[in-house]
């Protein structure tokens, strides 16, 4: 028999003896181990329930979040339904008001002589060029 076989045989015998020593563990110790096991299982169940109870709050939290999200979206979209006047439109409105309140400007608009003003502008440009 080789040394390796002897070691293996020794290990097998040692294992048998160890298993026998486990079988000989007394009833009181077995009972206490049994109680310890049930306590551990109960602890695992309690922990799992705690996790589940946290999960049961999820629908309520989800509903609140959804409501907040909807409110936020509505708040963001509300100004787009009635867009603010642009800067150009505001300026145009101010100029219209000035025209309506300024009598000279109204006379000028009524007596508008486009050809005269075009001739005057051409003259003015011609003088500027000859002077320059």
């Amino acid at each position, binding site marked *: 028999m080789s040394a390796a076989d002897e070691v293996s045989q020794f290990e097998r015998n040692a294992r048998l003896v160890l298993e026998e020593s486990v079988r*000989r563990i007394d009833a009181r110790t077995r009972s*206490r181990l049994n109680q310890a096991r049930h306590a551990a299982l109960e602890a695992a169940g309690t922990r799992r329930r705690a996790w589940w109870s946290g999960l049961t709050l999820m629908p309520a939290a989800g509903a609140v979040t959804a409501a907040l999200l909807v409110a936020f979206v509505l708040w963001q979209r509300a100004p787009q339904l009635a867009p603010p006047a642009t800067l150009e439109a505001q300026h145009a409105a101010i100029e219209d008001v000035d025209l309506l309140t300024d009598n000279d400007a109204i006379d000028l608009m009524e007596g508008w002589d486009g050809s005269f003003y075009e001739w005057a502008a051409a003259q003015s440009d011609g003088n500027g060029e000859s002077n320059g």
Partner: protein
Amino acid sequence: MPAALHGDVDLSDPEAKTQTRALNQFLAGVELKAFKIAQAALRHEDDALDAVQDAMLQLARAYAGRPAQEWKPLFYRILENRIRDMQRRRTVRGRIMAWLPARADDEDDDYDPIAQAASGEPQPVRRLELDEAVGALDAALRKLPPRQQQAFLLRALEGLDVAETALAMGCSEGSVKTHYFRAVQALRAQLGELL
């Protein structure tokens, strides 16, 4: 009132029920061997029971959700840590107690011969042989260094392979092989005639 309000497992959840059953089966399968390993390391029955109970609780609380095949090395890793903690605490306590007057050992206080009766019933001659072998192996195991003792018990008694033993002991597979080989050599030197 909900069925699972007073610490019972929620039986309405089939997955939880299956997991609880698997965990119960696992713990029932390891508890006696774990006790034997803890007893060999701590040499005290109540301390060994406490260590096993703590390991069961921690496994159930922290690792019950892990795959079942991971439970065994994790459980023995937890048990090993617990044993080391208790040994460390015992060393400190021993230093303190050395300064106090001697007192009777509390192990004898609640000795119950009926409860201490062995649960198996082998034949008388075989029983005598086994008595001798069990006693000799227990004594030889106690003489082993802790790491060798642990490696030997995890491999020979619990049947963990080298990788699982390494995980349980928190060391490399090479270290496990070395500890185990030395343990077998030492035990063989002491018990070769008997086993």
